[in-house]
């Protein structure tokens, strides 16, 4: 057990810090949250800066155009960028964390050459078309059909909750390529396609979130032709391809946000000190407990990352454990914030109120807490399959 960093890791951190200190002041002003083209330009611009400085796809393998960094270096990167107040990955999220790694692992050389460099450069934005109106938690029951017609699939159906759909160039799309019957259980018969968002037959209808913003959208697919060469992995093997990616996502997807939680907590303590709420022992102790929770989330992350490092980069089951605790803590943090801030808690113009609202999605998005508990119970604890 060792929490000390190697000389290489310390050097990496120092170089990164220096670069951030030099670069962040040159960033343009943040766009308004409702300004989608502005957000895309901002996020892609940041990705371009990372790319030019040699930080693009840090944890991707080198043969996929990444930097081949160790999980620990990736952790340091996420910690330092958050600490320095650098932008989030934003519009690049699906490309960098999801579609890219999937194509890197399962794609043909042509597919890798076509799609990976623009993701790393911040030239192309991806979205994730998995969920459907009737297939959320039960993702494998999706119904969007893809019928082979010559060298193309003809895709019809609809997707929902697709984040960033309005500004995306590509969609990682799960489609049904074989009907469900006795021979083909629903997990088979699914294929993974890269679909251009400007293809004829694609309609995006933004959905308004409870925060009043339009973070995600419905995507209607009406006989959209997607070349067969855009299929990653074998036909009907898309479920496995997808699972490869999901396992990579959870270990580190929230690192920056754990650092942010600690920062929010410190800001709250200072605010409480200034406005007198600090004298309330119940509230003060609640903030103290949240500090313990932040510490645990951070240590859990370090634990998962060093486990991944030992086992050759494949994150273990710790991701579900982490996500369950993190999503709950994050919501408790903002509830405590409301107590500290009093009347400001009802002022939707406050930035942290928007954060409070957005924290409500954490127990739902990327697998609900109930689904995570099913995973922990059945896959980690080995309990019999439930119903």
């Amino acid at each position, binding site marked *: 057990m060792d929490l000390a960093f190697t000389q290489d890791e310390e050097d990496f951190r120092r170089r990164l810090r220096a670069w951030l200190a030099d670069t962040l002041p040159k960033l343009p002003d943040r766009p308004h949250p409702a300004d989608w083209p502005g957000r895309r330009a901002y996020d892609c611009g940041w990705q371009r800066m990372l790319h030019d400085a040699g930080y693009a796809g840090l944890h991707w393998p080198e043969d996929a155009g990444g930097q081949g960094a160790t999980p620990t270096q990736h952790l340091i990167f996420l910690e330092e960028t958050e600490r320095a107040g650098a932008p989030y990955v934003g519009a690049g999220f699906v490309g960098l964390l999801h579609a890219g790694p999937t194509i890197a692992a399962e794609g043909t050389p042509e597919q890798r050459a076509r799609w990976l460099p623009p993701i790393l450069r911040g030239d192309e934005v991806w979205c994730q078309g998995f969920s459907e109106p009737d297939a959320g938690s039960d993702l494998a029951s999706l119904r969007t059909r893809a019928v082979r017609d010559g060298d193309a699939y003809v895709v019809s159906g609809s997707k929902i909750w697709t984040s960033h759909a309005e500004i995306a160039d590509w969609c990682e799309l799960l489609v049904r390529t074989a009907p469900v019957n006795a021979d083909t259980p629903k997990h088979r018969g699914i294929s993974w396609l890269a679909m251009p968002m400007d293809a004829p037959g694609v309609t995006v209808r933004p959905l308004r979130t409870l925060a009043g913003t339009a973070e995600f959208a419905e995507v209607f697919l009406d006989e959209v032709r997607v070349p067969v060469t855009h299929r990653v992995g074998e036909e009907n093997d898309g479920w496995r391809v997808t699972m490869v990616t999901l396992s990579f996502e959870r270990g580190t997807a929230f690192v920056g946000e754990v650092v942010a939680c600690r920062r929010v907590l410190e800001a709250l303590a200072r605010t409480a000190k200034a406005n007198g709420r600090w004298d309330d022992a119940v509230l003060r102790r*609640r903030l103290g407990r949240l*500090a313990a929770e932040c510490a645990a989330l951070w240590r859990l992350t370090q634990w998962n990352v060093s*486990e991944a490092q030992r086992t050759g980069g494949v994150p273990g089951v710790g991701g579900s454990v982490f996500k369950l605790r993190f999503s709950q803590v994050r919501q408790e943090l903002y509830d405590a914030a409301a107590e500290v801030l009093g009347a400001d808690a009802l002022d939707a113009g406050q930035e942290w109120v928007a954060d409070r609202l957005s924290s409500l999605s954490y127990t739902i998005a990327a697998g609900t807490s109930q689904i995570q508990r099913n995973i922990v119970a059945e896959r980690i604890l080995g309990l019999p399959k439930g119903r």
Partner: protein
Amino acid sequence: MDFQLTDDQRALRTGVRELLERCFPRTRLRAMVDMADGDGAERGAGLDRALWRGLGAAGLFALRVPESAGGVGLGLPEAVLAFEEAGRALLPGPLVATELTAGLSVPGALAAGEWAADAVRGEAVVTALDEGDALDERDAPVKEDALVEHLASADAVLVLGPTAVEVIAAEAVARSAEPIRSVDPATPLHRTAPYRTARCRTAQRRTAPERARPPVVPPGASEALGLAARLRREAALLTAAQQLGSACRTVELAVDHAKRRTQFGRPIGAFQAVQHLCAQMLVRAESARSVVYAAAVTEDPGDIAAAKLLADEAAVRNARDCLQVHGGMGFTWEADVHLHLKRAWVRAGQWQSAAAAEEELAAGLLSTVETCL
């Protein structure tokens, strides 16, 4: 950064687990508990000296004592792993106080007391009395009713006062202490009178020199202050390690039961309500593990406070959930679940309380020192 157990640490953990399975199997725990039988007296729960010596001989109290002083020469992480196993096995006795006292045998650090050398070998049973760290009684009163575990079985007491660290004969403390009916049948408890230290010290002086072994007293008050603070932190961490072991054990007990017990034609573990209880138990145990291990590495007061807080919570709440998973069986004396819960309650009250840990962590939020995050 390699925040995983080394091969040596894994081997140590396995070794301690096997040792405890041999020298303190469940049958012995049950025999002890069934004799104590809840009438509160220390009858059945007296400490088994042979067991204690065996633990001493195996090095349980000496893991952190340098080899030059007859110890194993390892560090806090190793002690934490061993104490996690002790918690898992519900090993009774003042393990933490004896381990800390053994650590005082380090030459040079203190005028080494004989108690310390005896503690290293498991020849002495040393319990503890924490009188709080309030320097000024006007700030905060000296702890009114500190509880001491296993006092009747103990040879000596490690007393941590605001400015003094002492190891004194157990009789001196026993004179001003009353037994209470301990909720945990395997942990007899005494309640001490306030301002005991001062009175004990007078009493100590009056005892005949050949009976009273020399107390361990550091040379200067400021050193005592630092030493007391360090011992309190380590005590909190080792207690947290035991809570972690217990929390992990109750996950196993719940999962085993959920796989075996059938209702409505299937194992209850196939019901999601049961699955989710078990999943949350694992989340608590693993969250606690990550901070307890990190605190063992960093020895940082904030990490230790977080470790004690979350390990207490994990032990207590996991025991409750485990009880629920066991149904009516869980409410019986037969199942071990209640023993885990009761011990977890005792340990949650020892050393750093939840309130104290939360206050310490809250204060840390306002400090300007850069934290790990």
